[in-house]
């Protein structure tokens, strides 16, 4: 009996499991709170077209993508100063790039999964809130949010 060559078997295996290399994500815009007066809470909604953070994700239609956000608890500023930053349920959504698509809001602190149904492209938006405390040192603050795709099915 002839055995199928390993190459053929490998190709078959890869065709059953969606090719993970076809799912990609890129960060396209920072979550930019802008100018924060001390003592005032500033809230950026994920719908903010300029200030909200955004990633673009591409994945085959009918694929289900699991991902999570690694969120900072504080922003780092001048001279070692830190400022708390807060993310709450509903501060993020994923929206497929397709006519009639609706945003799916999620808790940015949890694990997320999304099945691509109408498109192979989606945007992920993140908002948040910050309140510089009295005596907060003036200057520029920053930190990083990482979106990690943990599994693709």
């Amino acid at each position: 009996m002839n055995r199928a060559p390993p190459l053929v078997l490998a190709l078959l295996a890869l065709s059953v499991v969606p090719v993970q290399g076809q799912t990609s994500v890129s960060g396209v815009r920072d979550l930019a709170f802008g100018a924060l007066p001390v003592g005032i809470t500033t809230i950026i909604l994920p719908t903010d077209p300029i200030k909200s953070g955004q990633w673009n994700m591409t994945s085959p239609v009918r694929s289900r993508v699991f991902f999570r956000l690694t969120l900072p608890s504080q922003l780092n500023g001048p001279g070692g100063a830190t400022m708390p930053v807060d993310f709450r349920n509903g501060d993020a959504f994923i929206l497929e790039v397709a006519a009639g698509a609706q945003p799916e809001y999620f808790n940015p602190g949890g694990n997320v999964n999304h099945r691509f149904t109408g498109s192979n492209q989606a945007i992920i938006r993140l908002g948040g809130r910050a309140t510089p405390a009295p005596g907060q040192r003036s200057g520029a603050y920053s930190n990083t949010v990482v979106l990690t795709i943990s599994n693709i099915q």
Partner: protein
Amino acid sequence: MNRFMKVSSVLALALVATAATAQAQSANINVTANVFQALTVVGNSNLDFGNVFPGVNKTIGVTDAGAGKYSVTVGQAGANVNLSFTLPADLVGPGAALLPVGSWTGHWAATDVTSGGTTFVPGPGNEAATLSGTGLLFVYIGAQVTPAAAQAAGAYTAVATMTVAYF
């Protein structure tokens, strides 16, 4: 194993290995903010004389319940500010009747108290004040009204302005 089988085995292993290493993908964005200090001046409560009788002077001191109160907040401990006041000489009532007001008194402190701080006479001149270690300043003012014996009945009003200058 013939050569074709060897090559295909290597390729298969490579493909599977490539797929296996593509388990996790990630992308970063930054969260940015620019913090600015703010200066807040609030008029917390009126200088309220309540009921006044014709021919009877009435004084509200800085420690009285009707004293006027301002608060100043700057996010810099120990900051120096200047206070100055534009104060009326008269309150204006019905039929443009005038009710003299004067003998202004003032008190400022880094905590919300009406004694133990610095007393001053509010006026157009600069009163130098220093904010607390938490960037706070509280200012109280009082005055005296001197209604005439035939002072017309009605309500009398005026406007007083406090200016805070930050260096």
